[in-house]
């Protein structure tokens, strides 16, 4: 009629810890499983000669950050709202600033 509260909480935490362990397990299993796909992708990058990930397609400096020009009008970092939010997320690549 009256489950001890600390037991309920400890049980709840035990379930959580179990789920966290499951998450870790799933991640390492998934990582192992994904290796062939990653290799396939890497092969494609090599064949076509790609230089960037396709995350944003709204501006060319966001599509190919590593190929960007510092003087691209849209690369007025920070807070270039023309392309939001990619404009605020993509910073000019470090090699442009150091050279």
């Amino acid at each position, binding site marked *: 009629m009256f489950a001890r*509260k*600390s037991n309920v909480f400890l049980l709840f935490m035990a379930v*959580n810890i179990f789920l966290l362990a499951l998450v870790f397990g799933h*991640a390492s299993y*998934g990582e192992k499983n994904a290796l062939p796909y990653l290799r396939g992708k890497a092969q494609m990058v090599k064949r076509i000669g790609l230089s960037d990930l396709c995350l944003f*397609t709204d501006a060319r400096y966001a*599509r190919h950050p590593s190929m960007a020009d510092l003087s691209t009008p849209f690369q007025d970092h920070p807070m270039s709202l023309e392309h939001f939010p990619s404009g605020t997320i993509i910073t000019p690549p470090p090699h442009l600033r150091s050279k």
Partner: protein
Amino acid sequence: MSRFNKQRNILDFTLSSLLRRRTKNSALVIVYTLIVFSLASVLFFTQAIKKEACIVLQNSPEIIVQRIVAGRHDLLPADYIDTIRAIRGVQSAKGRLWGYYFEPAAGANYTLMVSEEPGVEVGRIVIGQGVSRTIHANRADIVPFRRYDGSYTSFEVSDILSSESELVSSDLVLISESDFREMMGIRGEYVTDAAVYAKNKRELFMIADKIKRILPDTRPITKDEILRTYEAIFDWRGGILLVILSGAVIAFVILAWDKASGLSSDERREIGILKGIGWETSDVIAMKFWEGAVISLSSFSLGIILAYIHVFFASSALFEPALKGWSVLYPEFRLVPHMDPLQIATLFFLTVVPYTVSTIVPSWRAATIDPDTVMRL
């Protein structure tokens, strides 16, 4: 055993005491879980992308040489490639032809790239999943393109790139060289940029330096620099993290402030009673510790689990608007799950520890009050 029992007893009281303000405390847990959830989602998402970029872009060209005219990326004269090829240590140098194409009907931007992939020949193109989705083009469909001079041409879709590769290929249109030149009006003596490979990987930097000296209007970008770009974007200081983090952190500071700004007179009174009936200062502090720990541990573990589901099972659905932005063509990708224990530990120390401490600290003084205060309550 009795020590363990004691803590469990104190935990019992703490839970009873938390349940008294059920609405307030569940709201607290919900807000807190949301904060951990968004922080963890961002962390998982950026880490997974970083990791993927690191593996996949390992195979990108070792050096890409661009020509810069008036501060802008310009076409590279093909004879530059011969000059580069003549540099000692260069294994091969090849012109890359690529560019962007804006499709006015859909409002989408494609990346057009000349390639010799199977299926790409004169009049036939291979497209990425994103392109296929945006203009509803399937294999054997005819897709019209606008030439540089305003006239139209069209190509047959011979193949669609696999959906697993979407993170690198979503917006690609692979096209033959002659079609590309004819469509864009780029004469044969120009290419977009050049991909250079070195005989010895350790000489990359030296070769890049040499190219810059021999061809002063060029800019060589090494593979390391490409990889570093992604490190920088998904660095905790950079971009996406900062944007989402700042909101979460501000919310958390408000929460902690509310806690740290002191105890209510009711709480003070209760601590007085507990001291009066024989609780030690350390018992009161243990109770306050549990109060912080119960809320922060529950929220932390729930937040982490939900974030994992969000990022790796639901394809970061909540980030979609952030990634989409103005773009019409949006890559749909599933990230490879990746959990870093160090990351989780960092998150733990950034959320659970400060919260628990900020619960204990204001009660410290109240916990040391003289037990006889209770006689005057």
